[in-house]
């Protein structure tokens, strides 16, 4: 059962081949069997089986939707009513969410079965899942390597078939990079497409939730449920949500594909580059017209991001003060001591680094030099995308400079870790949608191809990804031991 796609499972549930309870139990067993991956922080077994029973009723009485009875998992950044929601942090180790995130609510309404909450970098700050208070997640393709981050648990769980699909969030690459390193399909939608309500904030002008799945078709089904206007999110965009499956089979003849020369220069591993070249050739065969483009300001995306994201995080994380919820230090002597020690003992090193950086960038005397400067650079980067996407339909490039790196390899050098996000960060600054799809392997480890589109062109991205998945089978490979 676990090898089937979402649509096949939906079919199987309807034909009576298996029930949602059986399907859910199969996944719960697999989660237990592969605990060593550390993909889940919380497994909600009882709740899942109870909801699966309800889903079977809906399937029997004809009120089922496409996702009814399908076992999925939520990144532990999404608040889940009465279920522990940690965001990968000691600060929220005791936090039982008092409400559901809109995304969670939508999946619940659709009848999807939540298997549990997935491991992640602490407060989504990290590219390797090594900053999680709950320990690193192992990459199912090689357990000595990282799964990527921050949605590392989501990517590992989907790759190892410990959930049919999962949610992720992407502030600087946190859906696309782990999707690439674990060989799955991930989509970061346009900023504003998916509600951020109940999604614990890291950098509010960059954060966006999205689907992580085994194929573009599965991601299309998920996005249909996840996307849409939400009045509880003040930056949610009020546009209709299409049925993303409708255009999946559109022809790619005449598709103009831009390859930014800045994406294929120094720093990109040559084997990864060769793999991407093969993938792009495949698009040529599908009717794509390749054009080299230039986006000269991309190189400043990392410096701009590491001002803007920490600045927003330092403001957002000020809510964790040990007063209303979350971790509180023992025996505080006064209020300042309560704040300082609760935060100091609760947050991990990477989170502290970013709070310090953001506080500095926003402090008197430095605000213009760093924060305003970074916002101006952000404008120029965003204009690079607008100009490029006026010239071509989509932009393609790498997701990561190399395949998954070793656990412990980069965690001691934060700057080096930041630089590994060179191909993903600019997309968040601009707010455009982008995907990572499996495009081959280097020495047995998955390589992702990034496809970047115009604002709200998720349907086009999914179509482009799906067409590739009709002529290749990279997305169907399963890591050894998880077949």
């Amino acid at each position, binding site marked *: 059962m676990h090898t089937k796609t979402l649509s096949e499972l939906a079919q199987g549930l309807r034909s009576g081949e298996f029930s949602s309870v059986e399907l859910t139990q199969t996944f719960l067993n697999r989660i237990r069997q592969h605990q060593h991956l550390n993909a889940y922080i919380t497994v909600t077994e009882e709740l899942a089986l109870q909801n699966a029973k309800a889903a079977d009723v809906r399937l029997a009485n004809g009120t089922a939707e496409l996702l009814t009875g399908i076992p999925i998992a939520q990144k532990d950044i999404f608040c889940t009513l009465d279920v522990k929601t940690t965001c990968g942090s000691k600060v929220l180790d*005791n936090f*039982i969410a*008092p*409400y559901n995130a809109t995304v969670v609510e939508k999946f619940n309404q659709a009848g999807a079965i939540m298997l549990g909450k997935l491991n992640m970098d602490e407060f989504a700050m990290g590219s390797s899942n090594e900053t999680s208070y709950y320990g690193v997640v192992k990459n199912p393709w090689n357990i000595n390597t990282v799964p990527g981050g921050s949605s590392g648990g989501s990517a590992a769980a989907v790759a190892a078939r410990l959930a049919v699909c999962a949610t992720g969030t992407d502030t600087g690459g946190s859906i696309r990079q782990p999707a690439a390193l674990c060989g799955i399909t991930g989509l970061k939608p346009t*900023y*504003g497409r998916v509600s951020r309500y109940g999604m614990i904030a890291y950098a509010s*002008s960059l954060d966006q939730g999205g689907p992580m799945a085994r194929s573009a078709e599965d991601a299309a089904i998920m996005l249909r449920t996840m996307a849409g206007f939400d*009045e509880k999110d*003040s*930056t949610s*965009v009020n546009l209709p949500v299409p049925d993303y499956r409708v255009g999946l089979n559109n022809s790619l003849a005449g598709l103009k594909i831009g390859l930014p020369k800045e994406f294929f220069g120094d720093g990109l591993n040559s084997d990864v580059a060769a793999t991407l070249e093969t993938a792009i050739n495949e698009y040529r065969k599908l009717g794509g017209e390749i054009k080299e483009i230039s986006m000269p*300001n991309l*190189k*400043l995306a990392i*410096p*701009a991001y*590491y*001002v803007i994201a920490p600045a927003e995080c330092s403001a957002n994380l*000020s809510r964790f*003060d*040990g*007063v*209303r*919820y979350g971790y*509180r230090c023992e025996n*505080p*002597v*006064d*209020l300042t*001591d*309560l704040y*300082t020690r609760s*935060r*100091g003992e609760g*947050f991990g*090193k990477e989170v*502290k*680094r970013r*709070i*310090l*950086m953001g*506080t*500095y960038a926003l*402090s008197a005397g430095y605000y213009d030099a*760093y924060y*305003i*400067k*970074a*916002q*101006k*650079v*952000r*404008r*120029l980067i*965003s204009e690079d995308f607008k100009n490029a996407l006026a010239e071509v339909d989509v932009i393609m490039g790498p997701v990561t400079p190399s395949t998954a790196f070793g656990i412990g390899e980069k965690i001691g050098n*934060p*700057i080096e870790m*930041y630089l590994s996000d060179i191909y993903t960060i600019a997309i968040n600054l*601009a*707010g455009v949608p982008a995907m990572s799809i499996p495009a081959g392997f280097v020495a047995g480890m998955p390589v992702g191809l990034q496809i970047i589109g115009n604002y709200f062109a998720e349907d086009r991205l999914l179509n482009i990804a799906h067409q590739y998945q009709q002529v290749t089978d990279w997305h169907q490979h399963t890591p050894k031991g998880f077949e």
Partner: protein
Amino acid sequence: MSLTADDVNKIAHLARLGIDKQDVESYAKDLSGMLDLMTRMNELNTGNVEPMAHPMDQAQRLRADVVTESNNREKFQAIAPQIEAGLYLVPKVIE
């Protein structure tokens, strides 16, 4: 640009963030490295560029001034570190 241990302590105080004494030097080093990275932005002349705060450049949406939330005090306080009689408790602020 490099930050000293004193700078780090000052920033940590602004953020009400406790950091271990033995980590101060390494934060100073990491933050200095990040600042070096940021100086690259100065390569770009941004004199007439409008700062971009948000991808959609949208204005804050307004809504009718009506009550939309129900009272969840008990639910919210059930997860509080310390409460008494419906109030959140903190160390004494006023002597």
